[in-house]
């Protein structure tokens, strides 16, 4: 879990003697949490403005100001939560670079919605990685869900097309599409995703309900590039932040939200299928300081 300000009390003494070294230390801690230099600068500038205009001399108040700034950045511009279409099936497209936890997140999402009594179908559109289909099949069996898959190296667009056809025929509520991991810099593979998106839109005759980028919380500044380039290609609706059970910082989500206005919608924190939760900016921020 992001634990950026855990030492705030320790460095507080510095504030009394030397403001500059207190701010420097705070900046360092924020950067050490993978928050970018720019975002850190922005947050601290706001906090300082208040501290000096209001003559604040109390650590709790400074903490409150920091929290306020972070929540301000993290809170979604529109409503939070996931969009469910009134005309089923609702479609979630899950994308991301290799190894961030896409397939596991798909299984967790499916489990979450099955728990709410929804009929879920998994579309195994990662036709590239060895045994990717078998991995997601394993989860589908465990959760007793419908799954659509094709042969290895077949066209992922065709898998998606097929999935949506079957979903309509079987009265499915939610289709979750697992895609192959790809580097955001790979032109061809990003084009492939655009094509998948087109296939979906054509079948459901509206925008894709959720296009979620899976980001590994141990990732550093490159996560911003990932978000930017995936967003350029697909218009993301949100982020799933994975692996926050590690000591990783995940501070980069602040920068992603601040710079690109992409909200963090979900986070995952463990190996079990129910280790997925809606992201709440206030709760998340509180946990940073606890």
């Amino acid at each position, binding site marked *: 879990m992001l634990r950026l300000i855990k030492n705030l009390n320790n460095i507080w003494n510095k504030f009394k003697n030397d403001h500059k070294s207190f701010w420097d230390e705070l900046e360092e801690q924020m950067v050490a949490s993978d928050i970018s230099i720019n975002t850190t600068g922005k947050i601290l500038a706001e906090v300082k403005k208040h501290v000096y205009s209001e003559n604040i001399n109390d650590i709790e108040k400074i903490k409150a100001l920091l929290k306020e700034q972070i929540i301000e950045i993290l809170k979604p511009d529109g409503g939070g939560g996931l969009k469910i279409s009134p005309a089923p099936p609702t479609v979630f497209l899950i994308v991301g670079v290799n190894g961030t936890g896409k397939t596991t997140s798909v299984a967790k999402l499916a489990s979450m919605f099955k728990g709410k009594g929804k009929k879920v179908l998994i579309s195994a559109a990662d036709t590239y990685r060895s045994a990717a289909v078998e*991995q997601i099949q394993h989860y589908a069996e465990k959760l007793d869900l419908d799954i659509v898959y094709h042969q290895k190296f077949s066209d992922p667009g065709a898998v998606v097309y097929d999935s949506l056809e079957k979903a309509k025929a079987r009265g499915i509520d939610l289709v979750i599409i697992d895609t192959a991991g790809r580097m955001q*810099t790979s032109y061809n593979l990003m084009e492939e995703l655009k094509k998948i998106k087109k296939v979906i839109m054509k079948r459901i005759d509206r925008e894709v309900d959720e296009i979620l980028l899976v980001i590994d919380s141990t990732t*550093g500044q*490159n*996560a911003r590039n990932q978000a930017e380039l995936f967003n350029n290609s697909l218009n993301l609706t949100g982020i799933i932040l994975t692996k926050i059970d590690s000591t990783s910082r995940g501070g980069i989500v602040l920068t992603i939200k601040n710079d690109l206005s992409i909200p963090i919608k979900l986070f995952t924190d463990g190996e079990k299928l129910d280790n997925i939760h809606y992201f709440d900016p206030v709760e998340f921020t509180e946990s940073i300081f606890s």
Partner: protein
Amino acid sequence: MFDLLTSKFENLFYKIRNKGKLSSSDLDDALREIKLALLEADVNFKVVKEFLENVKTKAIGEKILESLTPYQQVVKIVNEEIKGMLGSTSSGIVFAPKGPTIIMTVGLQGTGKTSSVIKLANFLGSKFQKKVSIVAADIYRPAAVLQLEDMAKNIAVDVYSESNSDPVSISAKGVELFKKSGSDVIIIDTAGRLHIDEKMMKEIVDIRSKVNPHQIFLVLDAMTGQEAVNIASTFNQKVECDGIILTKLDSDTRGGAALSVYYVVKKPIKFISSGERIEDFDIFYPDRIASRILGMGDILTLVEKVEKVVSEKEAKILEEKIYKNELNFEDFVGQLRSIKKMGSLDKIFSMLPIANKNKIFKKINLDDSYISRIEAIINSMTVEERRKPHIINGSRRKRIARGSGSPVSEVNKLLLQFSKTRQMMKQFSGQKGKFNLPTGNL
């Protein structure tokens, strides 16, 4: 990889270069820029601090402020410090003096362990003619064993797996079996685990004490942030890693984690993995990356790649032509095909020192269908046009465009690029056809 760091340092040194002499505040500016560049590149902040202190002390000690060539001096110091951070020599792999070499890979989930194991197996097989076998010790992730077996089939490597058993005994049995069957190298692929997961960390400690691997490699995602240092030091504490395999370098990551990890745990980066293909795997050369960061490009890697796909004889003929500036479209299309064999275009161009500066190359979308489009245009030229590109006038351009199904602007672009390439090639080819860096007064 490391692109931003490279371009930041470039800009910085351009600024200083124009001044000729460095003031004390110039040095502070320079250090601040370096600090920001390194932090944005995910170099650990503690490492950055130490790095800057070293650079500053040396800069002052060597009296660069009074020097008439402060630019060269700062470059030299920064270069030396980065090399120091990355380790000075490439260490590659050490084989056991007797019997099979046992290698174990460890790391967090999703760093690319399984792919790296396959790539390493292929690398050791093709480069060192070793008989490699793999033990599948990841019993947790669904279909992990299947993934390994499926990929191993493509490179004809044996895999030992076992259901309903624990990773420690699977490893022991697998190693025993492959020892008997005469493997030169046995690689154990372990499950991904969090470094703070005591129970899972104990498992790799147990595997280690049971099978005594000769080499333990930590697989590290090059995109990892500030936490990289803690990850590497925890794994290193538990199982004493011999080195690091750095993965996903084909992304646009700045890869600063590589710098900090070496600096903090003092374990060399042994291999890098940089693409989806099995061949996208190589020994890590610290010098080359250091020179990349300083804007000199990764020309040595490129030369090696070229050597792999172009025969010596072909290269001689080509060198001759480049030197005499007689390169024509027939050679060009041949070269494009060789380039295709070397890997993706953007990767190759990123290794060139001028690639960052030359707008012409920046504008091209460097995907591989680009090569096919160029091939189509060249195929629509007559033999004479291919050999003497200068005869291609307006009406010929129109005809070529029609024939290849591309707009005239594409044809024009290609002709322009071709003449640029010719110039560039000429630059690269110094005397006796050796590659020379166009480094100016660096």
